[in-house]
């Protein structure tokens, strides 16, 4: 029982790292980025390549996956995404679906269509038991890394100057501009960090979620659920949404495997109907 809770939280943590960038960019620019998963996939493949071809240790691939996602995010933001901000949600959806399609086919071409497999260092393999709770070492590791990240993100978002400027811009970009906040630069940076986090999440998630070219499509719904349920103006909203989702998904599959696959969708639709503005979003007048 507690093992399931633990697994669910670890799973939710990865989801959070994968999706939190999306939620901030969505809030900041009101931009629907369905291609977020492509950055995650990129991070995953970077990790795989580094380990398989260059023999890099697993821990080293994590920052590399972050940087890879961030750099590509920065470049794409500048070149492709920026012209899209003024367009309708529909255009943004079409545009980012296009990117997803390209990423999926491109990954298939470059990396092959099969599931990628990495070998974890031995100290991350296996599991141990504390008071009857079976704890996978790797899941514990993921939990620690992601927990730390969530904590520092929350700190950065609420306590630093960057964070306060960001929050001001999310609230009202026009006013923020008027106050002399360089919203565009702020956004480029946020986008890069968000994409980097996605990349990191992709690398961390290989063991838990697998990695193949269909990754961005397969997990799109998960990211969107985290964001729509968690709202787009805080870090804590998506965090709790991701935890909720992770635990509900894992527990649902454990206890009622017959309908396990439905739980996430039903959860999303019900929550959206009940709280169309997101579970943790502030009420906007």
């Amino acid at each position: 029982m507690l093992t399931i809770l633990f697994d669910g939280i670890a799973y939710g943590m990865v989801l959070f790292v994968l999706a939190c960038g999306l939620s901030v960019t969505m809030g900041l620019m009101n931009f629907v980025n369905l291609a977020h998963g492509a950055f995650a996939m990129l991070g995953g493949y970077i990790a795989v390549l580094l380990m398989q071809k260059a023999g890099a240790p697993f821990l080293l691939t994590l920052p590399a996956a972050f940087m890879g996602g961030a750099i590509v995010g920065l470049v794409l933001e500048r070149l492709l995404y920026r012209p899209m901000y003024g367009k309708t949600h529909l255009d943004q959806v079409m545009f980012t679906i296009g990117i997803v399609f390209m990423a999926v086919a491109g990954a298939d071409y470059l990396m092959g269509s099969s599931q990628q497999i990495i070998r974890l260092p031995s100290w991350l393999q296996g599991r141990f038991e504390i008071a009857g709770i079976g704890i996978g070492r790797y899941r514990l590791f993921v939990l620690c890394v992601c927990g730390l990240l969530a904590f520092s993100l929350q700190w950065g978002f609420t306590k630093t100057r960057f964070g306060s400027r960001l929050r001001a811009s999310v609230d009202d970009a026009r006013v923020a501009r008027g106050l002399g906040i360089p919203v565009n630069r702020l956004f480029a940076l946020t986008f890069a960090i968000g994409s980097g986090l996605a990349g990191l999440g992709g690398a961390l998630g290989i063991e838990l979620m697998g990695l193949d070219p269909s990754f961005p499509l397969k997990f799109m719904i998960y990211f969107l659920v985290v964001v729509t349920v968690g709202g787009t103006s805080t870090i804590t909203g998506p965090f709790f949404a991701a935890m909720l989702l992770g635990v509900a998904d894992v527990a649902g599959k454990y206890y009622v495997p017959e309908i396990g696959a439905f739980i996430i969708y039903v959860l999303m639709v019900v929550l959206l109907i009940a709280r169309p503005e997101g579970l943790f979003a502030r009420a906007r007048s």
Partner: protein
Amino acid sequence: MNVRRQVLKSALGLTLAATLGSAALAQDTAKVGLILPMTGPFASTGKQIDAAVKLFLAQNGNTFGGKKIEIILKDDTSNADVTRRLAQELVVNDKVAFLAGFGLTPLALAAAQVATQAKVPEIVMAAATATITEASPYIVRTSFTLPQASEPMADWALKNNIKRVFTVVTDYGPGIDAETSFANKFKAGGGTVESVRVPLRNPDFAPFLQRVADSKPDALFVFVPSGIGAQFMKQYVERGLDKAGIKLIGPGDVVDDDLLEAIGDVALGSITTHHYSAAHDSAANKAFVAAFKAANNGLRPNFMAIGGYDGMRVIAEALKKTNGNTDGDALIAAMKGMSFESPRGPILIDPETRDIVQNIYVRKTEKLNGELFNVEFATIPMVKDPVKAAKK
């Protein structure tokens, strides 16, 4: 990657040649419409079969019974509607004498009606749900059926002191086939079974494996499509099920030869029952494996490849028997009861069901010369598909 490019190139070449040559050689050619998933999650199935088909033609020439065989390869992206249209177009526009390939059960079923309506033999080289051959009197199968591979597992388990089994299967036709055939046989022999089904697009096996861990059975019976076998095996080990003494058993899909190296040592010791292993000990198989590897950059043939290879042989032999008559009924009649020695061992096309009858081997995953193989250690000779056998 090179393999990929080569395959692509040759596929294109063949298609091109086929379209160009079709008009001139219509009289003396027998076209084979090969429909495979060349893209998408099941692309490896397509690649293996395509390579095996080419290998067969390269080894045996391409003229049988006076007819030159021409392959028209089409990618159905493992989408059943596309399969259906491609089959129809191949029949109507290209006038193919055979439809072949079919990577997954729904794809094979989608073409069944076309085969019936057009009276064109449909050679199923991969899909493995038991009922497929009942969908059309023109279907002949050269792969295997899951009950065929799963039932012997139940016998083996009972004999080897396994009393409680937890089954984990992917929730679609073949998985359900594997689960029910195994469970029925196992329960009939006095064992107890618990079951759980995993959604097809499932990212994380953790909750399902946790159930297995909590239940502490003697063995875990698993069927997942070969592509995600690796993921499953790793989580099985991560969760410590191997150390808890829970044996991994099942039909051979999870330890697919094609992926075994990538799965790694976690696969060691798995007991599986299947119809083909690249390590099958026979002269025919050694030659087949060597030739296949040589032609495909060292790619190891798996059970998909053998289905494609023998499928081509069935087509070739049928054409020989009919002396090049491409009438569908004549071809089917020629295929019924056909038997020969395949690299996998002796096989027979059941004259009643048009399904394949073959040896099922019990294998253990071991390391040979530093490579992982499924080493056969027991044989159940000439197994018929138990589902159709039971219906009679």
